[in-house]
């Protein structure tokens, strides 16, 4: 297959970037979009040009490292998949594909398609954890969790922190990410002791990083490769209100 890729090229955080058009040939339909970029990079290297910088790691949809906004969709137009899982058979031979980096003030561009998502790490460090004394493993079933609650917590815990929700949000808000982390821990008994401090601190860090406000347009849910639901955002709002009204903090 043959494709025309319009890829965002930008030397570094300070420089001005722009879309550059490339032709890439010899692509098989089962290749992923990342592998297509690999092929293009080999062609660029042969010509003595700078290869395109982009993020990837596991290439099996579980690490959250790949980013890319493909034809206007974070991780591409396919439902519940990451960029590395997006196969070229979903495109037509000879199609033009626009590839841009995630766009948000809180995710500054490092180079080409690579953005710095350490804002998420700082939000997590502000409270996205439970403090436990390490030691022997506790007895099984000594902390009871109902099955339906465990399921909800597990669904929220499926978040891989890729940032597609921020990329998709018209306001570059990080609400779905923070909501997933808050929900995951707030639903479990192990998360209860730090429940109030967690939501207040993670919220504060989220704002500090410069993410936008949620406008309840649910573009995040549509883009999420792990199908995190916006009902988690409602839970985040409840948790926040509860912490503000009921806690001493």
């Amino acid at each position, binding site marked *: 297959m043959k494709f025309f890729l319009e890829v965002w090229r930008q030397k570094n955080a300070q420089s001005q970037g722009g879309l550059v058009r490339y032709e890439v040939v010899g692509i098989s339909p089962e290749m992923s979009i990342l592998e297509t970029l690999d092929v293009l990079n080999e062609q660029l290297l042969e010509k003595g040009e700078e290869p395109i910088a982009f993020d990837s790691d596991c290439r099996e949809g579980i690490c959250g490292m790949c980013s890319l906004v493909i034809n206007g969709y974070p991780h591409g137009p396919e439902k519940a998949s990451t960029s590395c899982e997006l196969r070229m058979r979903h495109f037509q031979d000879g199609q033009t594909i*626009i590839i841009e980096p995630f766009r948000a003030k809180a995710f500054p561009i490092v180079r080409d398609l690579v953005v710095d998502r350490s804002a998420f790490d700082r939000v997590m460090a502000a409270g996205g954890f439970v403090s436990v004394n390490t030691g022997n493993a506790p007895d099984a079933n000594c902390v009871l969790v109902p099955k339906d609650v465990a399921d909800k917590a597990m669904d929220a815990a499926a978040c891989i922190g890729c940032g597609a929700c921020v990329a998709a949000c018209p306001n*570059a808000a990080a609400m779905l990410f923070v909501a997933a982390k808050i929900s995951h821990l707030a639903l479990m008994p192990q998360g209860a002791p730090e429940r109030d401090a967690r939501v207040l601190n993670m919220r504060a860090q989220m704002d500090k990083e410069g993410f936008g406000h949620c406008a*309840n347009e649910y*573009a995040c849910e*549509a883009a999420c490769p792990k199908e995190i639901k*916006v009902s988690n955002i409602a839970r985040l*709002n409840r948790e926040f209100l509860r912490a503000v009204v009921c806690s001493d903090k």
Partner: protein
Amino acid sequence: MSFLSRFYSSSLGRKFFVAGAGLSLCGFLVLHLSGNLLIFKGPGVFNHFAKTLDSNPFILPLELVLAGFFLLHIVIGLIVRYHNYQARPIGYAKYSVKGGRTWGSRTMTLTALIVLAFLIIHLKDFRFGDRSQGVYDLVVSCLKNPYYAIFYIIAMISLSLHLSHGFQSAFQTFGLNHPKYTPAVKKLGYLFAAVIGLGFASIPLWIMLGKIK
């Protein structure tokens, strides 16, 4: 007060203010519409209703509270909008994500500004206008101007669009989202938006059609 200012300075807190004031204003719209529709009962009933309202000593303090809700909703809403613009300094060459995006949600700021412009003109002409000949005559004489009536109708379509997203969105902001009732809340929001829009727009429409003289 430090608690309130801390609450306000958070992104989630600001949204609570906008949503809370917005839902309160929905209540006001119902009251306002119920009064307006008396115009179909003729000048006697309508003018009597307006006079009764004006002679109520509690109206002024209530109007001030109402103005407060409007200011909260508009000012904090615009601040939120400003922060949102700042959160993405460089936009996409191509942006395709839809999700729950509707005509209503997409045009929230535009419809807000149209309704705000309408609100200012509306207050100048009706609340602070010359009501010596009775409010009925004032309304009819203003809306006989087809440009005025069309602007009025456009503003009401904008209000309706604004409500179609705003009503249901407020529930989500308050953390009220559950498969049990969220579908009903969404339907109620659309119904409310339609009733309010059609209700208010019916008056200039009837005057344009010459049914109210």
